[in-house]
């Protein structure tokens, strides 16, 4: 067993027994961590792996949450039955939104996705078709039922979120080892070289976009169930900036990097409620400082890209 496997196993075991060691306040922090980590990993598929400058990721997270909320509250679907919609709908919308703009150069793509996020926010706030509940959102989402058995405790939601994170990590591992993952890697490294090798760049980028959106949608569904409510503020442009920053501050395409990023951005504020006021100020300063000191993130991925300070000692892996 090598070091990475050991750390991964330790992480899974600790997260697995976590609900039995803590009180309910900590448990809900744990759920927050799992949900946001899943979203951050899904953003990492798009931003870190495919290199698509996506600053509207909260759209897909929110779309999943709102799909579950609307289908459950307005149409009486069981939560479990809403899940497929919360996964497929964001993926389809991702393809529709990204399709026309995927060829744009980085910064233009960034601005276009910001635009989509702000339009999404306005759609939610203006209570479109009387479904989204306007600025207050939707309340009273049901509990999860499996074969008529209610999973209402926080522990159950925790394990649902945990299972989702593990599935996400499994998908990412399979992706990295697949033809698609390698294609994305080369596109990200050198788009022109990849193009000249015959890689269909828009196809793979859109694939990553749809996959990331689908996972974010599933996480959104869990988020809606955890709070039994959804509101536009949770999915605004600022939230997208946070996901964008998590991936790049933590280190893109790096599992520990994204975990660290999520912890710092979403878990720390829950722990230190007294610094909630100045939270964004501190994060902003930390974002600048991290980028100045470590432009590739706190813990960048080492696959094929060994940090300079490791090179003389270890050589090429």
């Amino acid at each position, binding site marked *: 067993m090598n070091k990475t496997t050991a750390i991964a196993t330790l992480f899974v075991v600790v997260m697995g027994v976590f609900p039995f060691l803590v009180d309910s306040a900590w448990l809900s922090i744990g759920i927050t961590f799992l949900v946001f980590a899943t979203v951050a990993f899904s953003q990492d598929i798009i931003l870190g792996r495919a290199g698509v400058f996506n600053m509207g990721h909260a759209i897909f997270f929110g779309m999943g949450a709102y799909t579950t909320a609307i289908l459950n509250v307005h149409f009486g679907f069981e939560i479990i039955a809403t899940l497929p919609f919360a996964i497929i709908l964001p993926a389809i919308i991702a393809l529709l939104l990204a399709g026309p703009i995927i060829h744009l150069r980085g*910064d233009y793509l*960034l601005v276009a996705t910001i635009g989509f996020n702000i339009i999404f926010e306005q759609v939610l706030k203006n209570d479109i078709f009387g479904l989204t509940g306007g600025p207050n959102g939707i309340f009273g989402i049901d509990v999860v039922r499996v074969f008529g058995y209610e999973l209402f405790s926080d522990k159950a939601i925790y394990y649902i979120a945990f299972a989702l994170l593990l599935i996400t990590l499994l998908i990412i591992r399979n992706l990295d080892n697949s033809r698609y993952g390698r294609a994305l890697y080369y596109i990200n490294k050198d788009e022109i070289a990849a193009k000249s090798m015959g890689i269909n760049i828009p196809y793979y980028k859109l694939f990553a976009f749809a996959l990331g959106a689908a996972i974010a949608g599933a996480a959104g569904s869990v988020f809606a169930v955890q709070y039994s409510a959804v509101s536009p503020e949770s999915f605004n442009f600022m939230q997208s900036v946070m996901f964008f920053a998590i991936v790049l501050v933590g280190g893109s395409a790096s599992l520990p990097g994204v975990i660290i990023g999520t912890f710092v951005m979403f878990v720390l504020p829950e722990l230190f409620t007294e610094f909630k006021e100045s939270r964004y*100020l501190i994060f*902003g300063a930390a974002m600048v400082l991290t980028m100045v000191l470590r432009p*590739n993130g706190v813990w960048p991925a080492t696959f094929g890209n060994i940090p300079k300070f490791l090179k003389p000692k270890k050589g090429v892996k």
Partner: protein
Amino acid sequence: MDIFLQQLINGLTIGSLYALVALGYTMVYGVMKLINFAHGDLVAFSAYVGLTIFSQLFGSSATSFVSVIIIFVLTSIIVAFVGVLLERLAYRPLRTAPRLSAVVSALGAALVIQNGIMLIWGPNMLIFPADLLPNTTWNIGGVIITFTQVCILILSAVLMAALYIFINKTKMGTAIRATAIDQDAAKLMGINVNRIIMIIFIIGSILGAIGGLFIGLYYRALIFDMGWLYGLSAFIAAIIGGIGSIPGAMIGGLLLGLFNALIAGYISTEWAETFTFILLIIILIVRPTGILGEKTAEKV
């Protein structure tokens, strides 16, 4: 017809504000290929600074032209200093770093300024004094024009003309244009690139400061996170005109202002932002280089 003319005047006023702010984005993008996300918040900051200078120096009494000029000058100096500081701390160390690192740094800087405003002046709305400029209004055939609007239109036009002449006719302007085309070549020609970038930040910040003060004088309500919206609108204006192009930013600003005013006048105010961003996305799809943008070869 009256509504149309009224919205035309309002649109040109807002458009001038967008243009002033857009110039800051477009100059930085032209030279550094960086979206300066903190620029919008710098604009919001200048409105707050102006308000504070007004209440500290002149109390709440109705004021003369001299005091208005003092407020504009002091605010411009302070904001220019912050702009230069921003470049030194957040952008200069990242000039050779990956593109996205600089974007994150810019976003971080934006968060710092925005939440700095919130911590200093509080999260609630502040109201800009109404009597800073004379409250004269003219009614020309049913179309109402305020003194503030006239000031905004005239001063923006003068500033933009001055900037255009500065960029195109002076030695320093030539150096700025050369740096925008190729930094390394400019360096070889003996141009101090660091100094050029500093000058760009000073000019951009001063124009942004004047834009921010006008926003305060025109809309009167200040809220700490207003920088995002004005900043994004101005940035869209820069893209419409062709980012990197100075006349483009002016034309883009005016067009976006008119577009916004007509949407607000004829269709809906609730969906105004949505229309702005739909316009942006259509422009990005159809002509990503904007109206006056040049077609550049794809950078590798």
